[in-house]
């Protein structure tokens, strides 16, 4: 924007115009002063009426003298003529004095030279008159004639000629001076015209420049106005501008489109016709609030308290639209702000925004949850990978150990049987046999587990008494238990303990759990097997209320217990508790196989540490009847 620059130009040009005007005025005053002073200077010279009169008077006096003198010459009545001559003479002298007086005052050199030349002539005429009168006093008429012709008459004509010449020269002088004044006036006028012309050009230039600058300023202002109007127009918020007396002066297009009014219906009307603050108490618009007292509104705005105030907009249809209003004062020039701007936002929009924020948060939450799930899955995958490596290591160990014995003893047998004692040979064969059986068990376990896991193994369900199965199992492990002097007791239920199970598989579970309990219990320890009525949720979800009757079995040992963080993992394949991990039996597959069997019965298997003593408890719950899942 060039606004500031252009305003600077206009300011400079305006100064130039003022300066030009001042210059013109100065020239006008100067010219007037010059003309006045010049005219004044020549005014006395030009004003020749007194001289004229004097010359005429002298001329008249001389003519009177001449006339009287001539009459004296032809007429005898000399007294009367003599009197006339003397009177004319007096007039002549008087006129002369008067003349001298005026000339002395005016100080005009031309006139002075005239006076100086004239004085002797006057005196000579006076002397000649006296002599002429003397001739008549002597009654010498002939002598008087002759004297008049020779002296007096000649002087008189000389004076006449002189005055005539004077007048002529005076006229010439006047003409010359007149021309001079004319010329001077012209010069002053021409100069004035020149100055005027120059000023006109200066003014034209100033005008043109300032017009251009003003045009640019106006264009710039138009741009700014257009810019502001576009910005205001493009606002999604409604904008009301109103005078502090409440009269609306401007609104943006959003107001028109949102409320359905035409612009001329709003501009000029009262702001209270369109907006009302919503009171906190009730949900209706109350006009006796911020809009009732504009001064108060101004104060509130200046205190910044009109910010997102709940209000209602009244649409043309009469609908009350809930809005949020924010106010600011519009300062126009100096002094108190006279206008107020209210930006009005549809409250519904803000509610939508809030909803959007909420759903964004929900989305974020879900993303976070999924990320957590993925992280968990990743950790589990990593753990599974670790377990796989551990499994391979374990498998290697479990397979190699019996192989080591079989190969070692059989090779010794081949090499040393001839020299060995019978008992040593028997021991070697026994070790080979034991190791082979151990190897077979391991291979069978692996096969069983993979069958169970893959679902190839089918369960042969039939009604069985679980108590009978437990007793049978206890019988088969009694040798092991007796070795450690362990007491195995069963706490059965008063009712029946029938369940629809695969007897062989459940017996295997009992066998596995009991073997473990025996293996990890100290000598003289005890193992308690208890039964409980229970129920299992049928549905897939926890919230499903439907249940089915079930039996719970707990095998409580008095062994070393299981670290808490291993209570879940011991059921994983090839995982053995860190406390019980030994090379002395156990493939790490037993609990995994149990888990698969119980799962096949739609039951569950878990472990916990005893709270009232050493050891741990293994529990499983199976439904009494199988149901469609």
């Amino acid at each position: 924007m060039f606004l500031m620059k252009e305003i600077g130009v206009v300011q400079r040009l305006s100064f130039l115009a003022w300066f030009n005007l001042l210059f013109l005025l100065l020239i006008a005053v100067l010219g007037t002063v010059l003309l006045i002073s010049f005219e004044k200077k020549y005014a006395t010279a030009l004003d020749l009426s007194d001289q004229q009169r004097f010359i005429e008077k002298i001329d008249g006096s001389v003519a009177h003298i001449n006339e009287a003198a001539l009459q004296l010459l032809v007429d005898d009545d000399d007294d009367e003529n003599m009197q006339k001559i003397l009177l004319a003479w007096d007039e002549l002298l008087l006129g002369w004095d008067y003349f001298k007086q005026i000339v002395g005052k005016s100080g005009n050199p031309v006139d002075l030279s005239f006076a100086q030349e004239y004085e002797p002539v006057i005196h000579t005429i006076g002397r000649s008159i006296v002599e002429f009168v003397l001739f008549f006093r002597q009654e010498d008429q002939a002598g008087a004639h002759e004297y008049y012709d020779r002296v007096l008459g000649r002087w008189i004509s000389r004076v006449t000629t002189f005055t005539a010449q004077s007048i002529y020269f005076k006229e010439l002088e006047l003409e010359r001076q007149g021309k001079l004044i004319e010329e001077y006036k012209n010069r002053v006028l021409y100069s004035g015209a020149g100055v005027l012309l120059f000023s006109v050009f200066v003014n034209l230039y100033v005008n043109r420049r300032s017009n251009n600058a003003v045009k640019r300023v106006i264009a710039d202002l138009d741009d700014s106005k257009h810019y502001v109007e576009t910005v205001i127009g493009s606002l999604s918020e409604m904008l009301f501008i109103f005078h502090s007396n409440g009269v609306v002066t401007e609104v943006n297009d959003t107001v028109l489109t949102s409320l359905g009014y035409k612009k001329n219906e709003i501009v000029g009307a009262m702001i209270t016709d369109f907006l009302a603050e919503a009171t906190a108490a009730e949900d209706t618009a109350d006009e006796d609030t911020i809009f009732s007292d504009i001064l108060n509104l101004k104060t509130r705005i200046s205190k910044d308290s009109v910010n997102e105030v709940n209000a209602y907009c009244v649409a043309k249809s009469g609908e009350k639209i809930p809005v949020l209003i924010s106010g600011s004062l519009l300062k126009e020039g100096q002094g108190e702000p006279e206008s107020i701007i209210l930006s009005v936002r549809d409250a519904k929009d803000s509610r939508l925004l809030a909803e959007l924020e909420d759903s964004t948060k929900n989305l974020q939450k879900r993303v976070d949850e999924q990320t957590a799930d993925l992280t968990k899955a990743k950790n589990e995958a990593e753990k599974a990978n670790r377990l796989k490596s551990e499994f391979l290591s374990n498998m290697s160990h479990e397979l190699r150990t019996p192989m080591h014995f079989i190969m070692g003893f059989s090779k010794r047998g081949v090499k040393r049987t001839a020299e060995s004692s019978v008992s040593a040979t028997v021991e070697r064969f026994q070790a080979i046999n034991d190791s082979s059986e151990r190897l077979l068990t391991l291979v069978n376990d692996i096969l069983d587990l993979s069958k169970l896991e893959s679902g190839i193994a089918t369960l042969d369900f039939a009604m069985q008494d679980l108590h009978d199965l437990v007793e049978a199992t206890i019988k088969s492990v009694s040798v092991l238990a007796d070795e450690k002097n362990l007491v195995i007791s069963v706490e059965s239920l008063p009712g029946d303990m029938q369940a629809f199970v695969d007897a062989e598989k459940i017996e295997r579970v009992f066998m596995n759990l009991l073997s473990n309990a025996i293996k990890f219990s100290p000598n003289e320890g005890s193992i308690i097997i208890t039964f409980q009525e229970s129920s299992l949720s049928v549905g897939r979800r926890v919230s499903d209320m439907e249940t089915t009757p079930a039996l719970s079995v707990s095998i409580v040992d008095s062994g070393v217990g299981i670290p808490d963080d291993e209570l879940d993992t011991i059921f994983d394949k090839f995982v053995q508790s860190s406390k019980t991990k030994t090379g002395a039996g156990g493939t790490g597959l037993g609990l995994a196989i149990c888990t698969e069997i119980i799962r096949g019965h739609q039951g569950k298997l878990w472990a916990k540490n005893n709270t009232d003593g050493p050891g741990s408890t293994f529990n499983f719950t199976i439904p009494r009847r199988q149901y469609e899942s």
Partner: protein
Amino acid sequence: MNPRILIVDDEPDCLFLLKDFLSDIDAEIIEARNGVEAWDILLKSHTEIDLVLLDRMMPELDGMGVLRKVKEHPEISKIPIIMQTAAASDEDIKSGLAAGAYGYLEKPYDDEKLIDLVTTVLAAHR
């Protein structure tokens, strides 16, 4: 004087096989069934032991644990130790040798291999 060899393994069959193998040389065999027992024997009578055959995978104190204890002891650390395991990976062998084991036997191994290694170690430490 016959050399004395401490054999450590949690598998009774393994101890039996080791004794069978070592019956080919004139050596006095001392047995330990786990790491704790082995360390006790070493502390009490290390001056009388010329070689330790140590299984790596044992409950409680495993072979590596015994090896570290041995190597930290100023006197016992002089006794050569041969590690053996059924689940040997390259990493296991490296870590065992790095911890100071004299040799590393991977099960299954035959009697000749054992006797070769044992006689070599005993000859070197006589």
